[in-house]
């Protein structure tokens, strides 16, 4: 398509808007499918195992390492101002409010999102989706909805695991290795972290990110070209679009939640 011909520009704009509208309608369809999906909980449970359990290793270890780095960087910055006892508070607030949901969403998009897109794309390439439609089985209800809801349930849990491992990592480096006072580490956290404001908002963020990332993964798989190249480009598109969407939504959510 040539960028300077008005007809081509108009066509491209209209087709992008039509794609967006179609994606929005699919999203609404998936959201309204919550009751029938959870009635067949076996499908959701299998997908939850596939998306959640298998992501646990990468999320937990990444959380631990992020906590280690936070402990180091945080300590060396805070002790310049004599506030090294606030290390626990710094690590916990950063993780619970921002890093937990966002980094988990990025890792989830990379690990679980790509496998969702590839699986659904390959089902489309192997004509399993068309066969299901011919057998009067709704592929959205059978294939997409369980994966979508499993991802939405898995994300907040994984984000919580990430944050918890991060705090433990910060504790290991700060208290055990550097020598920050253990009592003030935990008591600063108890005093400074509010369950509804900080932890609650972090959970809301991770639910929103779960909806976004899982929907983008499932949509890209469903709309992939039924060829190997099509599946490959859909997989990369999942990661790119999901990462950008997560970071953009994070800005909007933070502006609404944490500024007065």
């Amino acid at each position: 398509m040539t960028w300077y011909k008005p007809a081509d520009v108009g066509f491209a704009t209209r087709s992008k808007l039509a794609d967006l509208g179609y994606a929005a309608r699919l999203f609404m369809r998936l959201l309204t499918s919550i009751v029938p999906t959870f009635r067949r909980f076996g499908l959701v449970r299998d997908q939850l195992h596939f998306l959640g359990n298998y992501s646990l290793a990468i999320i937990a270890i990444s959380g631990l390492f992020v906590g280690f780095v936070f402990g180091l960087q945080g300590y060396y910055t805070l002790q310049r101002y004599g506030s090294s006892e606030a290390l626990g508070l710094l690590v916990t607030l950063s993780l619970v409010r921002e890093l937990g949901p966002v980094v988990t969403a990025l890792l989830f998009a990379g690990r679980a999102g790509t496998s969702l897109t590839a699986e659904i794309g390959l089902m489309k390439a192997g004509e399993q989706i068309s066969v299901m439609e011919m057998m009067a089985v709704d592929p959205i209800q059978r294939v997409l909805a369980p994966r979508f809801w499993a991802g939405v349930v898995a994300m907040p849990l994984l984000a919580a695991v990430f944050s918890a491992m991060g705090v433990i990592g910060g504790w290991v480096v700060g208290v055990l290795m550097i020598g920050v006072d253990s009592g003030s580490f935990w008591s600063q956290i108890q005093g400074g972290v509010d369950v509804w404001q900080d932890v609650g908002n972090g959970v809301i963020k991770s639910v929103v990110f779960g909806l976004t990332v899982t929907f983008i993964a499932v949509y890209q798989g469903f709309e992939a070209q039924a060829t190997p190249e099509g599946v490959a480009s859909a997989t990369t598109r999942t990661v790119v679009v999901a990462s950008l969407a997560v970071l953009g939504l994070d800005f909007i959510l933070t502006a609404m939640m944490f500024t007065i």
Partner: protein
Amino acid sequence: MQRSKNDVWVGMFVIIGAVAILFLALQSANLLSLNFQSTYNVSAKFDNVGGLKPKAAVRSGGVVVGRVESMTFDDKTFQARVTLALESRYAFPKDSSLKILTSGLLGEQYIGIEAGAAETNLVAGDVIGATQSAVVLENLISQFLFSKAADGATTPAPEKK
């Protein structure tokens, strides 16, 4: 799922909704200042502007009546030249005075404008002469220490036996 011919409209609706959410989020976080008031520019010279930043408020009696447009350095008179954008609905007399004040004890700085007693009002392009610079904390502390030392020198030292 079938492609519908209303998809384009749904797409436009989603984009409008997203822009609305973005607007609300930025407004609630005070990151967006959409000012639809017309303003007139007035300038003033200060010896020291302290921590004043562009877009700082100009307040009179506590109410925001304008914003700081820009600050430049005049190397003929070695003073800072500040341009203020005052809202057109507020008219101030020509001999109004400006002070740089701090909100709270160590908060951000703003300009306070106090109305004078002249009969003619400020118009765009006027220069305000009566200005008072910002209070610099280090100068205050050194003044205090100096006056303390001066007090100590005037009292007689205790005699040693």
